[in-house]
């Protein structure tokens, strides 16, 4: 009874207080908390700033501008707010923020989840948002008790006056806090007072995820919505020659059939009818822009480009002279294939375009890009477009692409009704913007003591940034082409890196760790070749080249110690090691593998991983990323390769693009090193050193040097034959 009385009077009070909102200005970094008038929130909530709101039950909802695609960013970012706000964890909730200017990433200047930046780019903003709210609550309590602010302390959802022991809960203080001026520079709690950061906190999305409750993009329902699908060209650049519109319209459930720039859109009352309608179209296409594109021709194209002159992206010392002087010279050719994202939730988007408004629900990593294509497609200004970020069923960089949003908006605008637009698995494979394939030629040299003195590297690869972030391309050099090569972690007195740009109709994009993933395979494999050429232990050889790079050396030593590198490997097991700094974090991987000489199958038994991201918010989430990234990277190292034929993509499903299964995973041991360095990313950096650690382990086990990904059983068998 008392409770309900309290609640009623509180509701009255807090209704009066609703109306304050802060936005975090983007004009500088660290962010400035600026007051912004808001007419009425209408829901008895206190909204101390753009990043959180408190309801009368004391529950704080943190608004997250980063997409949750499995990496745990929602929980991590909420921990930053909750820690500074001195909350009780049970009162913390999260939801996707709206898509608006105040939610742009302060470093990127756009709303985007990529580059393993979720926590590190938002760390200051979220901490300040929590601290500002805490200071306002303390200030409200101090004036209620008429005591100095300095005598009051916020703790687990309450403010306490330390001298008298008087306590008021946040919910009791909410209405008064709303009247307090917004502190522009709230003090941040020091690290030794953190109650959540650095501890394993349970993920806020876990309960829903085991109960089938989160709303992914495909789970959106809008009243009166239809379903749509586009019949697309089977080859890159192919133009529509003919199609049977009437036949498609006869399919039960099909509502509308019309041409769109790429092909023919079929809109129906359910997705199966839309797909049947597409089949009934019996669409005919011309041969496209490159009809002879296939796996064999692609190899030839790469080799032809290797003979071309490229752009010099790095030229340190004098490679020519060093090459002449070297007492031992070596040369190798490496290659990596095109690889698909294959996120389990295929690309999809639901759009409701009206004459004067547009509402979009999509599982996107790139909200600002989604907004831009919607503005372009509808002609509406940004304030007439509402974008809801749903939960994402995986992304891995693939969901920065917004083609599916453009299509959904275009189709909804044309039919004048909301549409749920879902790519089939085949469409998702056929229209993916892949990790680019690449071909590498490397020459290296050692002096008479076996110390590496030169590295000459030529890479043939297609650019990514030219399409996605053209401002990043300087002097024609796409940084992703040479990431991990030109900026390798080792000291190399003479280094020459050349990039030959490959223009092909195959679209390429950001794939978990981008250029680092294939380039690190190449660099860390060739380093291993040099170590063996010098007759040195691969770990010692690396450490000698990392005297200027103690954190890279640190993660290597960690996996070597934890993995027992100095002890003899178990029978028939080979050990390999590799390291890479990317996205602000250092990662080393040690692999233990065996190779079946008859079948050629490589079995990875054990991976020992160490990451040094400087600081850690949620250690268990970091461990989950070590496990997940390592497994995905093993999958790519051993199995994955997109295939092309007749000018288009041949790969169409998991049956012709197998990924790693449960029976193929090794034991994974993850280690986290923390220190006082700047916080780094964790979603991507564990990927790059996995493939070379495995390749180096295969060499240790068999003497076979595998220089072409994926390391499939047939390649191993041919290598054994060639060796014999």
């Amino acid at each position, binding site marked *: 009874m008392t409770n309900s009385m309290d609640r009623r009077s509180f509701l009255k009070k807090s209704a009066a207080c609703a109306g304050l909102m802060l936005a975090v200005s983007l004009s500088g970094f660290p962010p400035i908390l600026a007051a912004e008038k808001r007419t009425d929130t209408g829901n008895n909530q206190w909204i101390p700033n753009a990043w959180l709101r408190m309801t009368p039950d004391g529950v704080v909802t943190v608004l997250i501008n980063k997409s949750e695609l*499995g990496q745990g960013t929602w929980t991590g970012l909420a921990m930053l707010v909750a820690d500074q706000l001195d909350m009780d964890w049970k009162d913390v909730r999260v939801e996707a923020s709206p898509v608006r200017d105040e939610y742009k990433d302060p470093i990127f200047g756009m709303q985007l989840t990529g580059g393993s930046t979720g926590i590190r780019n938002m760390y200051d903003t979220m901490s300040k948002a929590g601290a500002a709210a805490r200071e306002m609550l303390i200030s409200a309590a101090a004036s209620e008790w008429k005591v100095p602010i300095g005598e009051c302390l916020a703790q687990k959802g309450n403010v306490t006056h330390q001298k008298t022991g008087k306590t008021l809960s946040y919910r009791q203080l909410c209405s008064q806090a709303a009247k307090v001026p917004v502190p522009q520079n709230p003090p941040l709690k020091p690290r030794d007072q953190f109650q959540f950061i650095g501890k394993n906190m349970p993920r806020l999305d876990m309960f829903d995820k085991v109960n089938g409750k989160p709303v992914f993009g495909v789970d959106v329902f809008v009243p009166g919505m239809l379903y749509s699908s586009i019949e697309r060209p089977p080859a890159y650049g192919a133009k529509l020659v003919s199609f049977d519109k009437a036949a498609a319209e006869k399919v039960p459930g099909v509502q509308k059939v019309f041409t769109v720039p790429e092909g023919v859109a079929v809109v129906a009352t359910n997705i199966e009818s839309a797909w049947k309608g597409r089949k009934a179209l019996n669409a005919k296409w011309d041969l496209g822009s490159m009809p002879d594109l296939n796996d064999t021709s692609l190899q030839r194209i790469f080799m032809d480009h290797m003979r071309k002159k490229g752009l010099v992206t790095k030229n340190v010392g004098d490679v020519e002279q060093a090459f002449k002087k070297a007492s031992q010279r070596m040369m190798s050719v490496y290659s990596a294939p095109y690889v698909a994202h294959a996120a389990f939730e295929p690309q999809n988007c639901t759009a409701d375009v009206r004459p004067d408004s547009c509402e979009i629900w999509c599982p996107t990593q790139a909200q600002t890009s989604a907004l831009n294509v919607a503005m372009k497609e509808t002609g509406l200004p940004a304030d007439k477009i509402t974008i809801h970020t749903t939960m994402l069923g995986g992304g891995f960089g693939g969901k920065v692409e917004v083609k599916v949003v453009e299509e959904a908006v275009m189709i909804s605008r044309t039919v004048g009704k909301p549409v749920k637009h879902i790519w089939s698995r085949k469409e998702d494979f056929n229209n993916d913007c892949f990790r680019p394939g690449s071909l590498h030629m490397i020459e290296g040299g050692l002096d008479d003591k076996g110390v590496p003195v030169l590295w000459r590297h030529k890479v043939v690869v297609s650019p990514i940034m030219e399409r996605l972030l053209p401002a990043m391309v300087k002097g024609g050099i796409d940084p992703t082409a040479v990431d991990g090569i030109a900026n390798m972690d080792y000291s190399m007195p003479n280094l020459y890196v050349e990039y030959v740009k490959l223009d092909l109709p195959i679209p390429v994009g950001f794939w978990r760790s981008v250029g680092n993933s294939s380039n690190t395979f190449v660099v860390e494999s060739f380093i291993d070749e040099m170590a063996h050429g010098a007759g040195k232990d691969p770990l010692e050889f690396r450490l000698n080249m990392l005297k200027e790079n103690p954190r890279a050396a640190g993660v290597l030593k960690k996996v070597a110690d934890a993995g027992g590198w100095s002890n003899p490997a178990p029978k028939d097991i080979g050990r390999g090691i590799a390291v890479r700094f990317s996205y602000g974090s250092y990662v080393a991987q040690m692999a233990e593998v065996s190779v079946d000489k008859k079948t050629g199958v490589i079995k990875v038994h054990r991976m020992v991983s160490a990451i040094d991201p400087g600081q850690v918010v949620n250690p268990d989430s970091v461990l989950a990323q070590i496990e997940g990234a390592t497994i995905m990277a093993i999958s790519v190292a051993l199995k994955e390769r997109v295939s092309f034929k007749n000018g288009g993509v041949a790969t169409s499903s998991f049956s012709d693009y197998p990924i790693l299964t449960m029976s193929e995973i090794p034991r994974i041991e993850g280690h986290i090193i923390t220190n006082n360095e700047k916080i780094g990313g964790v979603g991507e950096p564990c990927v790059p050193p996995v493939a070379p650690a495995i390749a180096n382990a295969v060499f240790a086990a068999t003497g076979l040097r595998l220089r072409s990904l994926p390391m499939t059983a047939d390649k191993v068998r041919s290598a054994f034959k060639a060796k014999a």
Partner: protein
Amino acid sequence: MMIELLVNGKKHQVDVDPDSNLLWVIREHLKLVGTKYGCGEGACGSCTVHLDGEPTRSCQLTVKDAQGKAITTIEGIPEDHPVKEAWIAEQTSQCGYCQPGQIMQAVALLARNPKPSDQQIVDSMDGLLCRCGTYPRIIKAIRKAAGKGGSR
């Protein structure tokens, strides 16, 4: 045409073509969206439901096939089921998209074999793919659920 489906103990009348795919009817007509479309060809397991207790890829069935059988989806497994609780305890899910299918397979495994060996766990789960790489935690969660009487 009206088709009667028995889902999570409730009878539903749905007006669909009898050859409609069970997965899409469960998702888009009954709005039980925990069951997911992953590949449409039975190769990934994200659409796994129980048909009379047997784990089944719903994308490979028509509603006609499922008529008269007891269909259970992720929404029909109690929130306090040992498998779901173990999944939370091990912080298993990452993106979460394939997880309902994984959980349905695990629930069926433990119903049949309350104390599976690690090899039996892997044998039963191997056809269910996860792109995030949650396999190690899935194994731990199933072991944990088995220890707590996961057969319930």
